[in-house]
Every structure is written in structure tokens, then in C-alpha cells.
């Protein structure tokens, strides 16, 4: 599952970079050259999960930090604090009053199976992306765009029906529909690329 965090992280940085620089119609190929320039991105998120059989959707929110040199931090503040740190070799879930749950690429290669693909995504490696998804990129005009990913390999195709990303200047929305009829909607806002260095607090999150 952390793979998808990577995927998400990549898409957020990738697409925001893309759109901050794009005036004309863009293609995935353009991303490939531009992605490596944005060191840090911060954003707020708001998530809504709809699980079938559950009377009301589950809402959560918090902020997210993507630092190219360090990885991703998914910092949920409500309804309860939960910090998720991910980089190329480890994933760590921290909750108050619990020992951190650590999964490393070494101890669980399966969970890091798509790591290379997702790293490739960081660099907009279109070839690697296309090996796992059918991509449908559309320019919606006025700087808006949409990328639809349809999994084409196992086990992605056993879990997800479709992943849809919407954005303009930055990535604004992710909609995940899974095969069991549940769905997740994440909205990003207050995106900022400054400052480009991490605060000591953020550094602390990455250190383990």
C-alpha cells in the first residue's frame, strides 16, 4: 500500500511541476525533463473514504510534505494523529503511544515491489508508468488537466479499478475507485513550494 503513497507523491510533485511551467498543452513526455527541479512541496489535504455498508463516509485531514531528497510525509491530524513517512528504502507509521511500525525494502520487498516504477514516475519515466497502467492524459483547457490511470498488471488490477488525478497549477484531487466498490477522494489545497529547505521539525520526521 505504501507503493501508492509513492505513486501519489510522485504524481503530486510531477504534475505540480508540470503545470507550474506549462502554458501550452502538455504531454507526459514534457514532465520527464522538468521534474527534477522542485526540491520541496507542501500541501494540506482532506480525505473522504466511502466504504460500502458504512452509514457515513470517513473523513480525515492533515498535511503532506514531499521532499525529493528525503521522501514523503503524510501527516494526518484529524480525527486522530497519524504520521506516515516513506522513502526509497523504508516506510514508517507512527501513532501516539505505539512503537513505530517499520517496513523496510529489505524486510518486505513485496511491499516495495513497484518502487522502481514509482521512482521512475518521480522522473516521469513514461515507459515505466506505461508498463503498469494504461494512461489517459487530457488537457482540459485553461491550465486544467486530468490523468486517468488504469492498472494493467497484477496485483494492481486486483485492487484498483481506476485512479484519477485532476489539477491545474498543482495536483488538486485524487479519486481512487477500488474493485470492491469502495472509493477514496483526496483533495489538496494551499500548495506551496517555498521554502525549499526543510524545517528542523520536518527533518525530524524523516529521521528515524
Amino acid at each position: 500500500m505504501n507503493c501508492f503513497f509513492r505513486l501519489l507523491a510522485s504524481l503530486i510533485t510531477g504534475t505540480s511541476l508540470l503545470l507550474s511551467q506549462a502554458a501550452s498543452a502538455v504531454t507526459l513526455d514534457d514532465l520527464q525533463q522538468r521534474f527534477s527541479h522542485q526540491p520541496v512541496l507542501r500541501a494540506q489535504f482532506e480525505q473522504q473514504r466511502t466504504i460500502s455498508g458504512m452509514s457515513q463516509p470517513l473523513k480525515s485531514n492533515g498535511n503532506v510534505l514531499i521532499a525529493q531528497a528525503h521522501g514523503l510525509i503524510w501527516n494526518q491530524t484529524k480525527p486522530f494523529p497519524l504520521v506516515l513517512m516513506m522513502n526509497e528504502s523504508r516506510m514508517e507509521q507512527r501513532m501516539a503511544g505505539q512503537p513505530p511500525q517499520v517496513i523496510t525494502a529489505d524486510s518486505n520487498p513485496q511491499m516495495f515491489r513497484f518502487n522502481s516504477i514509482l521512482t521512475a514516475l518521480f522522473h516521469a519515466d513514461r515507459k515505466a508508468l506505461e508498463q503498469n497502467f494504461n494512461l489517459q492524459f487530457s488537457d482540459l483547457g485553461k491550465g486544467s488537466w486530468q490523468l486517468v490511470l488504469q492498472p494493467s498488471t497484477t496485483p494492481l488490477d486486483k485492487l484498483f479499478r481506476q485512479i484519477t488525478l485532476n489539477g491545474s497549477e498543482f495536483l488538486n484531487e485524487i479519486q481512487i475507485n477500488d474493485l470492491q466498490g469502495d472509493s477514496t477522494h483526496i483533495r489538496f489545497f494551499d500548495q506551496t513550494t517555498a521554502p525549499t529547505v526543510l524545517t528542523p521539525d520536518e527533518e525530524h520526521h524523516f529521521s528515524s
Partner: protein
Amino acid sequence: MKNTIFRPEIHRRIAYAWAIGVIALLIALMVVLPNSRLNSSVMALLPKEHIENIPPALEEGFNQRLDRQLVWLISPLQPDDQAPALWWQQQLKQMTAFSSTSGQMSPDHQQQWGKFFFDNRYSLLDSATRQRLTGDASSQSDWILSQIYSPFSGISAKELSNDPLLTIRSAQMTQQQNNRTLQLNNGWLTSKDPQGRVWYLLHGELKTSSYDIQSARQTVEKLDQLKQQIAQKWPGTQVLQRGTLFYSDYASQQAQQDISTIGSVSGLGIIILILLVFRSLKPLWLTLLSLTIGAISGSVAVFILFGEVHVMTLVMSTSVVGISIDYALHYLTERMVHGEDESALISMKKLFPALLLAVISSSIAYLLLFIAPFPGLQQLAIFAAAGLTGAFLTVICWYPWLSRRLPVRKTLRLGFIHRWLFYWQNGKAFRIGIPLIALLISVAGLVQLKTDDDIRKLQTLPPEFQQQERQIAALTGQHSDQKWFMVYGESPEQTLQRLESLESALDSAKQSGWLNGYRLLPFPSEQQQKKNIALIRQQAPEIIHRLQQAGINTTQPSFEQTTIKPQDWLNSVASEGWRLLWLSLDNGQSAVLVPVEGVTNPAALKQIASNHSGTHWVDKHTEFSTLFSVYRQHLTTLLGISVLIIGALFLWRFGLKQGLRCIIPTILSLGIALAVLSLSGQSLNLFSLLALILVLGIGIDYTLFFSNPAGTPSTSMLSILLAALTTELSFGLLAASGTQAISGFGLVLSGGIFAAFILSPLALPERTNPGKIS
């Protein structure tokens, strides 16, 4: 006594008695042979009682079981192409050699697996869940919420209603974490290498021991055929294999090759030698007879005492031939020279003391090998002592009668022997020069001598085997270096409880970096299962309450679960891949292996084991290498003491001058033996040291022959020449063996014997007139 047995009527009776004895030996051989086996395991050469306190049946059981395991990794050209692996699985199923095989798990199998875990989810709680439950109930509910809120966890309403406490999810995550490299893929366990190739894992268990040479050969041949077929059907498919079977088959092939080449070349050499010297076929049949009876005596003794013979024993035993043939040659030489002057019995009476001394001293030298507790060497000791005795008795009892009408060659031309002895007795250049050269060579060799007790060096495996071994270890994360903890108890329950108490120590050892990983049987004791159920039953109401507060619709599950017995777990699909590590005897005694890898601090792990009752740290390779080193040092001391005692005896018996003449060739032959070893690039180990003991035993005989004032130097020289030549023909060829231990043994022996032969005339008293020699 000595005189009475050579009275014709008494000697005849003794000869008949020995004939009856030989018939008895033949019958015994026919009885024991069908139940005996040829062992080819290097491990079988090593001491058996090295793990104290563990019931031998448990250790034996594990060894036997591990020996029967075979693993294949099959990589198709296309990662998703299961056809080659499936075909291989079908072929294995059809082979009668296997008692079980496994490869792809059927969907039905996977369902059973899921059902077993679902049915027993509370008694089989994983360690992470247990840890969360032991604290505040909120730990578990928080964790459940974190999973539900995570957009990527893939939790469905169905999973939540079936298992609201998410125990199965946690167990699976823990298990995945423990399985470092293998993944379940369409029912196959697969691994991916850095080049992106996918490898499918298959497994088989042999019906019979890997050391059963005949069936091992058949199985390996069949598997080789399958490999060829798979390469034809699916070009580009790669197959890796691992199993004791392949090593044992390789070793026995190698040994058979050794025996046939060494045996035939040395046999041919000896035949030519005998024909050259005696110019008659009769001595050939006679020596063959005594050799055969010697071999039968040796085999019967070994089979009766050990129930098996090791191939290494067999190869080294060919060297016994070279010594036992000496008795026949001594007598036949005597008859050839003095056949007309004296009767056959008189000749035997004359030679008897020397022969008796020879058989006793050689047997004692071989029996010294018994000191080291290595089965292969003990077998060799028994084989040699019994074999030499058998050959000796045949010569003593039957030769006087059988060697009648042996051609006499009184006019044997011994000119070169006379000259050689003359120079030794008169030439300062010989008496001082040759020993000096020998001393220089010894020093040059000894300076470079290295010791190496690593048992892996004893067996030279083809690089192809080692390459496969490394690849399989990298792909599966399962190493075959046999490092593990063995936990045992009087009952399955006690064993499992002891195993549980070891877990935290292993965890902290891992954190300290003493080891990289370990595989702990994922099955809790009954005590722990009860605790698990009680724990979750106690915490569940609070967890459910908190989930409900967070807006999750869940209800309290029922906890009507009983504990599972180890046997039920073993019979279920859930224990697949783990059964090998569990062994239970009929009396309840049970044991579990905990394989570890990436060991950096074996001493600390040994300490952990000694802090836990019923737990042993097993590191065969290190243990055996240490043992080799210890026995090498013991034998070095023993050898040193022997040389000192012999030296003292010689000085006391012969006086300073003659005593030194007798002891110098012996000491120099030891030095040359070591020099040959080190100059040929090999290092000193236990085996080469054992050869050194034999050099001492045999070499002394040569000097004693010469220092005997009653002996005639030229006849002694001829016998010694023949003896040394036959010994070289058998030992020298051992040096050509493909097995390093045997070739080192052969090098030391042939070098030492050669030096002893060259230097032994130094023991001759000084004389001036060459004419007086004969």
C-alpha cells in the same frame, strides 16, 4: 611356540584352521553385505556425538530429513510463463524417487490456508497484535483506524465485518515481513533476481537417503535428462538445483573414479613389478590371494563394526594393499633366493619374527588413527588392521605349501644394489651429503608450511555447484550453511514454550547486529494460545467501543475457539514450508530448528543458547573446523612425543653414534613429507598429519631392517626396494585423487616413504670392503 607351529603336522592343522576361518569370513561377508551401505557424505566423516544433551534420535532425525530435501528454481524466458515450472512439477510427481513434491499451490489449497487462519485467528495471534493488545486497548483500535483511514490499505466492508479486529491482516503483514525474498504469485513461491528474471520454487523429498549411491545415481541421471528436455522444450529456461543428493552423488562418482583409476594403475604397476622380479606367474596369483583375503577380512570387520563403509575409507584402503603385499614379497623373495638351500617351512620360520614385527608395527600405526573420533578414519584403522592380519595369516599359513615349485633365481643380478649400499657405507658425500640435502629441502618446505583446518577445503566442489548454491541462497534467502538454534523438550508443549522464550533474545541479537535474520516456527504453544484468546477476549469490548465511537459499524465477535494441537497444525496446509523444522518422536520428545543467517557474532549466539534451557547453537562448519584444529594439534603433540620416545630408545639401545644414524632418516623423512606437501601448495590439516604418523610407522621398519646385525644388507635392500616400490605405487597414486583430503594424505605418505627409503641405508654400520656385503 615359534618353533612348534612350524612343525609340518602342526602347521598343516593351522593352515586348515585358517581355511575354515576364510570360509567363515566369506559367509559373514555374504550375510552383512546386503544390509551394508556405502556412505559418501563428508559430514559422515565427522564425529557424531558433538551436540551434548540433545537426544540423538532427534539430531539423527533432522540430519536424515535435511539430507533428503531437494530444491529447484526454474526461470522461464518470459516472467509470466508458468509452463516450464508446471511441467517440471508433473515430471517430479511421476518419479518414484520422491516421497513428496510441491510447487504450485492449487486455489483450493490457498482457500484451505485462508480458512485455517480464519478459524484459528485468535489463538494464532501474531506478535505485533499481541504487543498492541498487551498495552492499552486503544493501541489496537488506533491501529485498526489507521488501516481504515489509509486510502491505500484496501480494507473492504466485508473484511471489517468478518474480522473486525483485523487479526488476520496483521498476521499476514507480520508473515510477509518474515519472508524476505519469496513471494506468493499465482500459487507459486517466486523470487525475482536483479536482472528481472522470475524464479519459480519447487521442492521434493527423497524416499531414500541421499547416500544410497545406486538410487542417488539414478535420480541424478533422471534429473539431468529432465534438464535437457526442459531446455529443448523451452529454450532459454534456466534451472537451479540444490540438495545433499547432488553433493553426495558427485562425491561418490569422484571416489569411484579414484578407486578405479588408482586401483587399476597401481594394480598394473605391482603386477609388472612382480613379473619383472620373479619371472613367473605364480607369485602373482599368490599375492593376489593374500590381498583378496586381506580385503575380505578388512571389509567384514568394518561392516560388522560400523554397518557401512565410507567411500573415503575405501579409497584410502587401497593403500593398505601396498603394505600387506610386503609380507608376500618378503617370503617370495626369500624363496626365490634360497629356494634350493632350505625347505619352505624353514624359510617361513626364519622370516616369521620379522613379519610378525612388521604386521604388529603397521597395525599399531594404523590403529593410532582410532584416536581421532572420525568415523572414516576409524573405519580405515579397522580395515587396515584386520586386512593386514588377514594377509599376514594367509602368507604364514598357506604360502609354504602354495609356493612349492617356485622358480629359483639364485643368480639375481643385484649389482646396482651393491653399489648403492657401498657408497652409503663408504662415501662421505653420501653419508653426509644426502641427509644434508634432505635437511635443506625440509627446512625450505617447513618455512612455507601453512595450516588450514577449514573443512570446506577438504572437498573440492565444482565451481558450478558453488555458483548454484550462491544463486539459490540469494534468491530464496535460505542459506545452506547449517547455522541454527535447536530447541528441544520432553513434549511438544515444552519445546514450543522454550521456543517462545527464545524469541526476545533473538530479536535483541538482531538489533545488536549479531545476526541478520532468523526463521521462527509460526506456531504458539498451547499455553500461549490460551493467553492469546484470553487477551483478545478481555480487550475486545473496549476496542469495539472505540471503533463505534469513531463511526465504524462493528459488532463484538464471538471468541468460541479452542486451541490447536501441533499435530493438527502440521497436518494442515498452514504449516507448509515449516514442517521440515519440526520433529517429534513417538515418546513426545520434540525439537524445532531456528535457522539464522548473516551471523557476525557466533560467540554471542552460543551464549544466548546456553542462557536458555533446551536450546543449542549449532554451527556445524565452525564446530568441525575447530575440531579439526584441536585434533591436528593433539596429533602434532602425539607425533612429537613418539619421535622423542623412539629417539631415546634408539640412543639407549644402539648408543649415540648408531642411535643417531637410525633416528636421522626417520626425522628427515617426516621433514621431507611435510616439505612435499607445502612445496606442492597444499596446507597442513588433520589428514596430512595422519599420513605423517604412518610415515613414522613404516619408515622406522626400513631403518630397523638395516640396523639388524643378523640381516644381510643386500637382501634387506631388495625387500625394502620392493616394499617401497609397491607402497609408492599405491600411496603415490592417492596424491592424484580429485579429493583434496585424499591427495594431501597421498602426497605426505609418498614423499615420506620415498625419503625414508632413500635415507634408510644411513643406519648401516660402516664397512670398508664392498665384497663383504652380500
